[in-house]
């Protein structure tokens, strides 16, 4: 039997998180490998001299307004990408209990670390 009454549709708020996920994913794809290479391998192994990553240099960078913005984006934005994936990954793994709480914890975590880094940078200014 044809059903002519219009169904009610509920709009999802996923675009907000998907937007951040996409931006973070893009950033991660382009920058994270070289960042890991520099801070995790080349500097610690001494292939790039430590003086290029000295306290003075980094501190000067992170306390300039543009440097602070770059540090914030590089550290925090990937989290909005990864926690989004972790949230959906939990569903894939069959962890169905408390989806609301999973969501609060996942995005809350990304938010908390973002705020943490933001305050640190602000106070160093």
């Amino acid at each position, binding site marked *: 039997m044809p059903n002519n009454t219009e169904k009610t549709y509920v*709009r*999802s708020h996923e675009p907000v998180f998907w937007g951040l996920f996409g931006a973070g994913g893009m950033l991660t794809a382009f920058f994270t490998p070289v960042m890991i290479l520099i801070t995790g391998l080349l500097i610690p192994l001494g292939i790039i001299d430590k003086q290029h990553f000295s306290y003075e240099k980094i501190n000067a960078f992170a306390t300039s307004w543009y440097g602070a913005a770059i540090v914030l984006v590089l550290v925090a934005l990937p989290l909005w990408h990864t926690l989004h994936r972790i949230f959906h990954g939990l569903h894939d793994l069959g962890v169905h209990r408390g989806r609301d709480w999973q969501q609060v914890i996942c995005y809350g975590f990304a938010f908390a670390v973002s705020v943490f880094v933001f305050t640190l940078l602000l106070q160093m200014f």
Partner: protein
Amino acid sequence: MSELTVEIDILRYRPELDSEPFTQTFEVPYTPELSVLEALQYIKDHLDSSISFRWSCRMAICGSCGMMVNGVPKLGCKVFLRDYYPKKVSLEPLANFPIERDLVVVMDDFIQKLESVKPYIIPGENKCLSEGPYQQTPEQMAKYKQYSMCINCGLCYAACPQYALDKKFTGPAALALLARYNRDSRDNGEAQRMKIVNQEEGVWGCTFVGYCSVVCPKDVDPAAAIQLLKVESSKDYLIGMFKPD
């Protein structure tokens, strides 16, 4: 001279007899040009007439013969024994669908999803007959042509873990079909269909696994259709924030 043969495992289920499916093995004479569907027909004609499976066109156009071949959703008429020989071939009904009988699955939910996306042209103003037909340039047609090639075989639903995890998800073929109409220059129903797209069970049920586009026998690329709809849905969300309807 002994003939070459190939073993075929079939997951069988006879609702009036079995409480759950079981595997039955058949031995079929091997020739390289035999399709899996023809092998099934051989079994039905010569070995066990009770076996059930769907088919019609035998040329990958009707979309009836979808099944899992060695765990991968395929059209039975489009895969050949030579693709597996000398390994054995295992046939199961399409994953993620209820089994009706043997290789036949219940497609009701799939069909409902296809119907739910308003898959027809919704014209803007009604033109008078004397004004002639709604015309379209080849470029305008190119925008949706790929998404109109679907044969409703359901392979993409069998390939989609998100559909497996949550049957409310509208799913690949239906969303590709929706995109096909939204992208048609003669159509004016985008606003209506975006409501379907914007839901949790619309495009947002998708995590871009991407397997649907790999298994599709017609290169419809439903995964791409869904990604583009996500972009559209995000735009729609932004507009909705400033201009709530």
